[in-house]
């Protein structure tokens, strides 16, 4: 599937071909810490199909539990996390963070990984009170939504 995406401020734009069998939820502690939420969802590109159309991302290298180095790219202006890939040479598969993909509503995860460190409440979201938008009860918490 051909997709395109962008960071929030628009500096970084890209396109890629996805492997739809590789839309994955990751519950690892690095994903929780760096995305600052409960888990990440990534869509893996087919090898060497990601093209950066505009912008110059910042990169950060970390070592995964496997011992392999991962290079993580994000926008230096707005901080949007866009994708990660392997270090060094060779064909590149990019793990694209689905939040920046324009067609993300069509992408459904097919597997979850690192569930051993997953937050236990992620399977029970339907039981948590929800608002269609943001303002008003429950709990009289509008002061937090200035």
């Amino acid at each position: 599937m051909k997709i395109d995406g962008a960071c929030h401020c628009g500096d970084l734009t890209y396109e890629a071909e996805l492997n739809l069998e590789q839309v994955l939820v990751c519950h690892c502690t690095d994903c929780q810490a760096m995305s600052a939420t409960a888990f990440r969802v990534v869509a893996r590109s087919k090898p060497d199909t990601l093209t950066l159309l505009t912008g110059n991302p910042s990169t950060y290298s970390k070592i995964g539990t496997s011992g392999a180095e991962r290079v993580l790219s994000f926008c230096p202006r707005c901080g949007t996390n866009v994708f990660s890939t392997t270090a060094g040479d060779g064909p590149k598969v990019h793990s694209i963070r689905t939040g920046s993909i324009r067609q993300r509503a069509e992408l459904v995860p097919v597997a979850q990984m690192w569930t051993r460190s997953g937050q236990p409440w992620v399977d029970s979201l339907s039981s948590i009170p929800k608002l269609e938008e943001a303002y008003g009860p429950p709990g009289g918490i509008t002061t937090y939504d200035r």
Partner: protein
Amino acid sequence: MKVDGGCHCGHLTYEAEIDESIVTVCHCTDCQNLAGTPFRVTAHSFEGSFTLLTGKPKEYVKTGGSGNPRIQAFCAECGSQIYSTSVGEGPKVYNLRVGTIRQRDSLVPTRQIWARSAHHWIDNLSSVPMYQEGPPQPR
């Protein structure tokens, strides 16, 4: 509840007092885009209780659905997103990104907002095959 936390590379560290009975899942499209994830999880500091201990975050200002400008702070070294807060002076409430909080395993969301833009599969995660560790290999 007193909490502390920081970014992945260790450049930014902070502490704050939060009300652990209000932890928010936000499904808005800005959260999805900025974090690259289906939603963000946020804890809210009591006004004036947030202290940045080390580092200086990069700040990006966006306009929220309310029309108010919001500062989005992140680490310029590793890209970890830390908090959002209001623009301007005076004591502030900081919306802390729960993934960066060291005590995050004891924080459970109590409300969800902007559910109108939530992903349609988000309530059915338990039906998605699970692997305790690393990814299934591509075929």
